[in-house]
Each structure stands twice: as C-alpha cells, then as structure tokens.
C-alpha cells in the first residue's frame, strides 16, 4: 500500500499561474474557469516532463550505484558477471546484438512496409483496400508476446531450410555461415522483429500516402506519368518525412522489443560474427532473462544497461525529429 510517494505526481496541480505566465497565456485566461482549465491542462503537460526527468534521474542514479563497483569497463567488457567478486560486466555484446537485430529488421521491414502502404493506397483493387488495411490495423495490435510465441514455435522450425541454403551459397562470406544449433540466431530475431514492426510502419506510411493531395497526383498524371511515375514524383517525395518517422517508430520498437527476442533467441554472452549461429543478446532481452535471478546489485546493473537502451532510443527519436523538421519547409507548405 505504500505507493503514496508516487501519488503527488498524479493529482492535478493547483492552478497558480504567475503574472508573467498569465500574460504569456492566451488572451482568454482571465476568468476563473479559464484559469483552472489552463492550470489543469498545463499541469498535465508539466507532469509529463517531470516523469521524463524522473526516468532519467532515477535510472542514472541506480545505474551509477552499479557502475561504480564495476571492475570491467562498462562499455567494452564482453561479460556479464554481476555475482562475481569483484563484479565484472559490460554492454558490448548487448549493444552489438541490439544494433544488428534492429538493422536486419529495418532492412527487411521498411521496403516491404512502404510497398504494402503503396499497395493499399494505389494498387490494390478498391474493394479490397478497406478489408486489408483493417486486417493490418488489427495485426498492429497483436501483442509482442504472441509474436514471440509464434516465432519460437512456428517460425523457428521453418527457418532450418533457409538457413542451410544461406550457408550453402553465402556461407563463404562468414556473415551467413551456419555451424549447427537451432536457428535461434540474430537473423531469426531480425526476421521476427521485421514481421512485428511491419504493421506499424505500414500503417503510418499508409496514412501519409493517403494524405498526398489528389491535386499533386493529378498534376503528375496530366503530364503523362505512369502509375509508378506518379508515385515517384508526387507520392514518395510528399511522404518521405512521414515514412522516415514511421521507420523510426518501427526502429524504436525493434530496439526495445523484449519478449519476442527473449522467446526466440538462444542467448549467450558472446558476439557471433555469423548472423545464423545462435548466441548474442539484446539489452531488453538480457534484462528480461536475467532479472528473476538477479540480486539487488544485479538489478542495478540491469538498470544500467536499460539506461543505455533509453539513451539510444532518445537519440533515434531525436534524429527522426531532426530529419522531419528539416523537410518541413517543403512538405509543410501545402499542409
């Protein structure tokens, strides 16, 4: 029951806008009703900022407790021994696995998702568009744990053949060599993540493509453009920033995806140079897998790795926003 320490954040703060704030606020904020309402809504906004700050502060604090006792280098150590005396742990393996699996997922998912979005807005027979986008909407809502279960019990057995194939023809690259073991590797994770983020990227891209003003498409058509040329001239340029933000949303999900990775991957604390050999790990998967057996110190170490994940997702989001902002001078003109 001792959650009262959390509570002060939740109730609406009292409306006490300062004089300067009142001046800055909308002209209407003079009546009591207006002031209360403004206070309530602004308070909620401030609360969101407070939560974000609290996340950063608390994670950093707990992480610092762990990292200060770490005998290894937190960023470059290849092991995770929080129980050892002295403890030695680092995130190198996790960072590698997280980045690799997310890149695989993006490489597979983004082109396919954009193609499906175009399919839904420009290619599919009109009768089919409604039902198909409906199905994709619903699939975006399938919980990740269900994807994980499906991936582990259905997808993995089906990948044996493909992995053998890749090993036969591309094994010489080293990246696609496959010694043995079940196909529970980074590539499997990447494929599953791709399937999982596909609906999100598709949905957002579809919305963006749908908003392309009819008149731009007609302009291209009237110049004698084929359907593909209309898409290239009018649809893709207009939708580019939207597609980027859609992809970033997908990337964010792929980076932080926990359960699907934890169910499918056969983890180890090593870096596998081949994408087909089982092993490796991701930040989120490592936290979920190690959590239940971790001591309090072990949990702090996991929090430290979570902080890194947090920072990475912050950077990804920041980059996405910067890209969108830069393109606004073009696409915003007719919005």
């Amino acid at each position, binding site marked *: 029951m001792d959650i009262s320490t959390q509570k002060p954040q939740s109730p609406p703060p009292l409306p006490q806008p300062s004089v300067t704030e009142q001046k800055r606020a909308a002209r209407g904020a003079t009546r009591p009703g207006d002031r209360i309402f403004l206070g309530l809504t602004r308070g909620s906004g401030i609360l*969101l900022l407070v939560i974000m700050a609290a996340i950063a502060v608390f994670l950093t604090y707990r992480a610092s407790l762990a990292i200060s006792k770490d005998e290894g280098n937190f960023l470059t150590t290849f092991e995770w021994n929080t129980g050892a005396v002295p403890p030695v742990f680092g995130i190198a393996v996790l960072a590698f696995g997280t980045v690799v699996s997310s890149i695989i997922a993006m490489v597979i998912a983004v082109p396919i998702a954009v193609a499906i979005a175009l399919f839904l807005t420009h290619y599919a027979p009109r009768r089919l568009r409604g039902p198909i986008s409906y199905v994709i909407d619903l699939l975006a809502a*399938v919980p990740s744990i269900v994807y994980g279960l499906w991936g582990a019990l259905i997808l993995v057995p089906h990948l044996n053949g493909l992995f053998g194939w890749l090993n036969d023809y591309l094994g010489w690259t080293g990246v696609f060599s496959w010694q043995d073991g079940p196909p529970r590797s980074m590539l499997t994770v990447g494929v599953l993540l791709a*399937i999982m983020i596909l609906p999100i990227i598709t949905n957002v891209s579809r919305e963006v493509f749908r908003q392309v003003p009819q008149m731009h498409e007609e302009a291209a058509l009237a110049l004698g453009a084929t*359907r593909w040329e209309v898409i290239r001239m009018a649809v893709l340029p207009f939708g580019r920033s939207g597609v980027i933000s859609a992809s970033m949303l997908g990337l964010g999900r792929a980076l932080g995806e926990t359960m699907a990775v934890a169910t499918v991957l056969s983890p180890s604390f090593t870096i596998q140079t081949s994408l087909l050999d089982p092993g490796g790990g991701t930040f989120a998967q490592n936290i979920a897998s190690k959590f239940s057996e971790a001591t309090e110190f072990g949990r702090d170490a996991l929090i430290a790795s979570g902080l890194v994940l947090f920072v990475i997702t912050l950077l990804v*989001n920041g980059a996405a926003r910067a890209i969108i902002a830069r393109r606004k001078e073009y696409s915003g003109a007719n919005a």
Partner: protein
Amino acid sequence: MSTALVADKRPSTLRGARLPKWSPWAIATGSIALGIGIGLAAGLDSEVQWGLLAGLLFLLGTYGIAARVEGRRQAKDRIATALVWVAFILAVVPLASLVWATVQRGVKVLDVYFLTHSMGVVADSEPGGGIYHAILGSLEQVGLATLIGAPIGVLTAIYLVEYGRGSLAKAVTFFVDVMTGIPSIVAGLFILSLMLMLDLQPFGFAGSLALAILMMPVVVRSTEEMLKLVPNELREASLALGVPKWRTILKVVLPTSIGGIVTGIMLSIARIAGETAPVLLLVFGNPFINANPFEGAQASLPLYIYQQYAQSAGSQPAYDRAWAASLTLIAFVMILNLVARGIARWKAPKTGR
C-alpha cells in the same frame, strides 16, 4: 528549333504495344509452378525457399517480358506493380500463419473451465489449470493504468492544441515524441528503481504505473490529432458568441472530437494490455488468484503466456495453455479494436470523408 527538340523525343503515336490484361496472372502462375518445380527438383525442404524463388521469378519474368513488349517506362511501371504485390504477399503469409496457429492451437484447451480457474494447484508440465487469475490481474492493472494515463494524456493534448505556444509547449511536444519511443522495459526499470529505493516487493499497481507511462504519449498523440481536426471556424464561432475559452473547449471542441479521442484511448489500452516486459519486472507473476492490485505479486495475461512458454521446459500442456491464453489476449485486443473503430465511425465528425 527548340520546339523540334521536344517533339523529337516523344513517341510518335498514342498507341503502344500493350500486354494483355491477363499477363500478370499468367506470369505469376508460371513463376509459382517453376518455383515449386525447382524446389522439388533441387530437393529444397522448406516452403520458405519455394516462395522466395517464385517471387524472384515473378519479378524477373515481369520485367523481361514487359521491357521487350512495352518498352522501358512501362516495364518499370510493371515491375513496381509486381514488387508491390510480392511485398504484400510476403507480408500476409507470416501474419496469416500467426493468426491461424493461434486460433488452431488455442481452441484446444480454451473453454469455460480454462477461463474460470487459476494455476494454483497445477504444475507447469501437467494439463489442466486456467487463466482466471491472469485475466483478473490484467484487467486490474490495465484499468488502473487507464485511470491514470488517459486523463493526463487528454489534458496534455488539450494544452498543446488549445493553449500551446511558447517554450513549454515545445518542450512538451518534444518529450511526448521522446516518450513514445521509450521501450516498455525501460518504463518498467524506472518504476523498478523506485521500488528498489523504497524496498517494495512486486505488486500489481507498480505495473499499472509503468503501463500508464507507456499509455500517456499514445493518448496525447491521438487526442492531439483529433483536436486538430476540429475546424478553427467552430472555435471562433463559439468564442465570437462570448463563450469563454474553457467552455468552448468543453462544449464545442471536445464533443466534436470525442469519438476519435475515445478511439485513441481504447487503442492505447489494447496496446498496453499486451505489454509483458514491465509486468515481468514489477508484478512478477503468481499462479494463485490475487485480487488486490496494491499488495503482492499478481498474474497478467501476457506474462502468463511467457511463463507458460519459458518455464515449462517444452511440455505440451503448457504450450497448449500458452496458445489458449494468446487466443484470449488477441480476442480481447481485437474486441477493443473493433469497438473503438465502431465508436470512431459512429461519432465521426461530419466532415468530408
């Protein structure tokens, strides 16, 4: 002279050689047959390879034939069409497989007994047991999360759309974006760090707090979109009648957009209902029925699925239960989605499309 420059490079006629309407189907049939043929001949054992082969043949065949008959521009157009279709089919196959597997395997043990009993006295490797405790836990955790997250989200969105100017609004907008990208496990770790400091044991409401954090930015975004759809003329009309701004928002803006707002909230509920990671850290899971979200470990539906899968060492009854619970969870999420969409359609602002 310059007129001739343009004229030279155009096709002299309005007609061009066109492939017959049925040609894509013919090429598709041919490539599928060839793909299966090659697959069988080369002894490839996985349908995944057959499908990839057929897709590749379809693309190459389309481009080759179209380029020969219709010219390069048309061939590009054709291959774009072919690619888009292949991508669509490529995506539909795993998604269909997921739905099919969940339904087919889920119905095995899904019955009234399953829905009304807990795992209290059932070992993971034995048949029997149910998900009553998990459903109860999920409903409580998600319900509490909604009570916290939805109002804050809606109010924030109102602030951003109706009042938001200046640096505070900019900061909020920015951090809502950032918050959207927070992995669920990080939200879980945040609450966990609080619990470590207060020396608390796992309990349901801790999970609710993490879920609320995940829910807020989603609600803010969807509500913002809906409020922005309300035409400014409506606001101005109301303000011009001397109605105070807050009443304008409550009486004009919100009612116009309420359908979309509710839809957004329900969709965000559907999203957090499937979250496993924070629940794993904060609520921990419990085979027994615990109806008090404020004390003691609780179960939750997604967590139940994970634990049945991960802690059962491959026993079939546990897998069956995991599938049945998945089916239940999907059904819950789908119903929420359907209802949300129903509301959106029913309450849609009467503008254009």
